[in-house]
């Protein structure tokens, strides 16, 4: 090996290999950073505690004219929607079909208002509470309100009116008096806010309460569904937006924004990875060319080696070793640089959005290993072909 190395190392162009290594590092670095960035950011756009939204969409029909028009979903429409490929689960919002009148004692005064309730299957409720059940007329009604309502009061209303801000705990401690009436009945029930939702933009009660109350107070038994909650695989998928457009449905802005952001992320990452790929292909091209040239310059010696009994595998060994070491160097440098860049951008993310990104750099490492092995295998194949060609030349 030492002798054959001594024989073949002539004509090695450090310049050509340097260009290959630099191009290889640039390409690999861009690709690895691309996939790592994607895998780090994607959960922020789609996960439970997501930055912009999540995989749930609230879908309604648009109100086209003032007055009572049908914005309800028919059973057929709901079933058709449920059968779409991108839908994981679908829930219907059930609204109260009776009068609801809520009052609360505040500073010794009684504040009252008309209100409404909606209910949805428990599996769509994003609030963890052990009080989310209803046991009949003697029990208290648990209510979940959107966290937005509280924020609106605390950051919009109270400050301008000189009123004190209130905490979630305070609201949960207040007992509400709810009067339900209809169908000849009228009852007072206590109620309490048990949680705040980021996902459901309504005044939510448990499904079991809603069924009980609709049966007791509603005039008709017709079920009216005006809003749907849809869990989708990927809100960024174009087919989701296409389907909504086609059916004339609208998704609540939050989810739509999320899907747009996710779509943009996917497009940008695809572009980044593509650029990295171009660099890598370029670098492979340079290496291939440079190895070809090297073999060509040494072809006389290679032929003689073959004639004194060297097999093509023997002859290829030093060349394989060169490419394997170069590719290893590229992998090591790129992966270290990727980790450094990741540490940097994770720092920015936690600074700007206050989110600690979990997960590991495994995606980049595994991708890097796969790419390096694939590139090396490709190089080895090319070298083998070229050397066999030279050895068999007569």
């Amino acid at each position, binding site marked *: 090996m030492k002798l054959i190395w001594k024989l073949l190392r002539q004509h090695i162009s450090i310049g050509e290999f340097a260009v290959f290594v630099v191009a290889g590092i640039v390409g690999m670095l861009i690709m690895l950073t691309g996939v790592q960035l994607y895998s780090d950011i994607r959960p922020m756009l789609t996960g439970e505690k997501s930055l912009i939204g999540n995989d749930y969409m609230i879908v309604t029909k648009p109100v086209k004219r003032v007055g009572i028009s049908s914005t309800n979903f028919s059973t057929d429409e709901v079933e058709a929607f449920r059968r779409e490929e991108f839908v994981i689960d679908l829930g219907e919002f059930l609204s109260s079909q009776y009068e609801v009148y809520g009052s609360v004692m505040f500073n010794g005064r009684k504040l009252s208002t008309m209100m409404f309730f909606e209910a949805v299957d428990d599996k769509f409720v994003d609030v963890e509470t052990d009080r989310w059940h209803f046991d009949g007329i003697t029990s208290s009604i648990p209510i979940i309100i959107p966290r937005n309502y509280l924020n609106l009061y605390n950051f919009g209303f109270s400050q301008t009116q000189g009123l004190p801000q209130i905490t979630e705990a305070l609201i949960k401690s207040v007992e509400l008096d709810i009067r339900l009436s209809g169908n000849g009945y009228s009852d007072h029930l206590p109620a309490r806010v048990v949680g705040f939702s980021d996902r459901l933009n309504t005044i939510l009660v448990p499904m079991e309460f809603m069924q009980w109350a609709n049966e007791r107070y509603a005039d008709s038994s017709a079920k009216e569904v005006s809003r749907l909650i849809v869990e989708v695989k990927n809100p960024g998928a174009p087919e989701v937006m296409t389907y909504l457009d086609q059916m004339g449905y609208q998704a609540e802005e939050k989810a739509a924004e999320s899907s747009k952001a996710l779509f943009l992320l996917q497009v940008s990452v695809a572009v980044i990875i593509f650029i990295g790929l171009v660099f890598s292909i370029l670098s492979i091209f340079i290496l291939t060319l440079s190895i070809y040239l090297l073999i060509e310059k040494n072809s006389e010696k290679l032929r003689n080696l073959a004639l*004194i009994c060297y097999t093509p595998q023997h002859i290829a060994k030093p060349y394989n070793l060169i490419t394997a070491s170069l590719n290893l160097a590229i992998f090591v440098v790129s992966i270290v640089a990727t980790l450094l860049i990741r540490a940097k951008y994770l720092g920015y993310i936690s600074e700007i959005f206050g989110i600690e990104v979990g997960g590991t750099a495994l995606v980049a490492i595994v991708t890097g290993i796969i790419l390096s092995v694939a590139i090396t295998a490709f190089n080895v194949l090319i070298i083998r072909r070229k050397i066999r060609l030279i050895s068999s030349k007569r």
Partner: protein
Amino acid sequence: MKTIKLQRVLPRIFADRKSDISSDIWLSDVAFERGRSYLIEADSGKGKSSLCSYLYGQRNDYEGTILFDDSDISSLSLDEWSAIRRGSISILFQDLKLFAELTALENVEIKSQITHFSDRATIERRFEELGIADKLNTRIDRLSFGQQQRVALIRALSQPIDFLMLDEPISHLDERNSATMRDMILAEQRRQGFGIIATSIGRHIDMNYDKVLKL
């Protein structure tokens, strides 16, 4: 390998003048046997280099059939040829095919390291016998052609051999040196029992040939 047979072999370049060919080898049936010595005498232009190239797998532009122990060599693969060159047929090339960048010793070792046949002591003893012991670590391109021929012979003997082909082995050697070279070849032949196929266009290495063929 016990025999090499040529059956009506003819270089393709001679195909258009078949009727002029009068040769003991071309268009004849010839067999070379292991353990015996053959001298092939030729004038230049008779295809001596072609014959060596065919038998060593460098070229295959011939008509007819060449058999190694009854198997046609035209279908041998690159790897099979490597194996034959490693353990069965050795050749002393007319143009030597040494590596100018390497020393005399390295030129032998680059082969013996693959064949694991001759140890360092054997190699050094041969350098001594051929009178070039002081050139062991000299770059090959600093040696005279005669000295290079001797190095090439030591390299050629560094492997198991069934047939040793000598392509004008002593063209640049004096009587004394060609005699020592012959002695070394014969000693190794006694040890390994290989066949010798030597070619010559004029002077030939002096030994008891079993058969002299005219190309």
